[in-house]
């Protein structure tokens, strides 16, 4: 990849990819490391898509794989995560007004968190998410359903 192309990809997508990684890792230092790994892979890769939409999907896929690798390697990961709250990624007042508690998200599995982020925040379809996360579409649908139901039940309990 040429440096000019690389800079364009970085400037367009670094923030989006970083937020996704941060969402999954809940650790700024890990997210910083993983982001570096991701963009080094981008730099070395000959298979970066040309189309911007495909580029982002490809980057999310690389980021997710890098995060999983990081999970495997790092034992201190879980300790770091305890100091990070999901609400730090959000506009606090608006989330509070909705009555949604971000700590409920902690109960979700990593894949479920990734699916909900890509589906609810970025608006990807289950098919697109299946491609990004290298899962079967039906598997994504089931996991999304389970995660959404869990969050909805939490919300309902809180309302009661």
């Amino acid at each position, binding site marked *: 990849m040429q*440096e000019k192309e*690389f800079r364009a990809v*970085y400037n367009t997508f*670094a*923030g*989006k990819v*970083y*937020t996704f990684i*941060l*969402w999954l890792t809940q650790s700024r230092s890990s997210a*910083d490391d993983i*982001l*570096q790994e991701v*963009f*080094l892979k981008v*730099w*070395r890769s000959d298979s970066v898509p040309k189309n911007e939409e495909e580029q982002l999907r490809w980057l999310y896929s690389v980021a997710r794989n890098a995060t999983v690798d990081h999970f495997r390697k790092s034992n201190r990961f879980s300790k770091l995560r305890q100091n990070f709250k999901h609400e730090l*990624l*959000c*506009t606090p007042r*608006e*989330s509070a007004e*909705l*009555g*949604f508690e*971000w700590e409920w998200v902690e109960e979700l599995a990593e894949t479920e968190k990734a699916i*909900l*982020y890509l*589906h*609810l*925040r970025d608006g990807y379809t289950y098919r697109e998410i299946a491609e990004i996360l290298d899962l079967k579409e039906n598997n994504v649908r089931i996991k999304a*359903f389970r995660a*959404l*139901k869990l*969050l*909805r039940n939490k*919300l*309902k309990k809180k*309302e009661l």
Partner: protein
Amino acid sequence: MSDTVQKHPSEEELIQYALGQECGELEEHITTCSQCYEFVEEMRIVKAAFSHIDEQPVSGSVRNKIFESIKKDTSLSKISHFIQHWYTYPFFIGLLTIFWVLFLYFIYIFSQ
């Protein structure tokens, strides 16, 4: 609204409706069934919460590290490319030839 509507859509259908993937047929039921309406509203709250996740800025130091690492990677890959393909560089071949000629010439001179 009434709870007397007997046939409720499945939770999965309600979720899809709440997230804007399927409309039409369910609309009538949801407007008349408080139970399903409540379910859909709760799902919409979950969706709205996720829409408030803000894009996080990457710090300048991380950006610098990334660009430094790709520069290092470039020079490393240039060296490794040269090691693997040194015989394809005409300048290097010419230089090597001159050294060999000089080396052989000096050996010849000193052996006299």
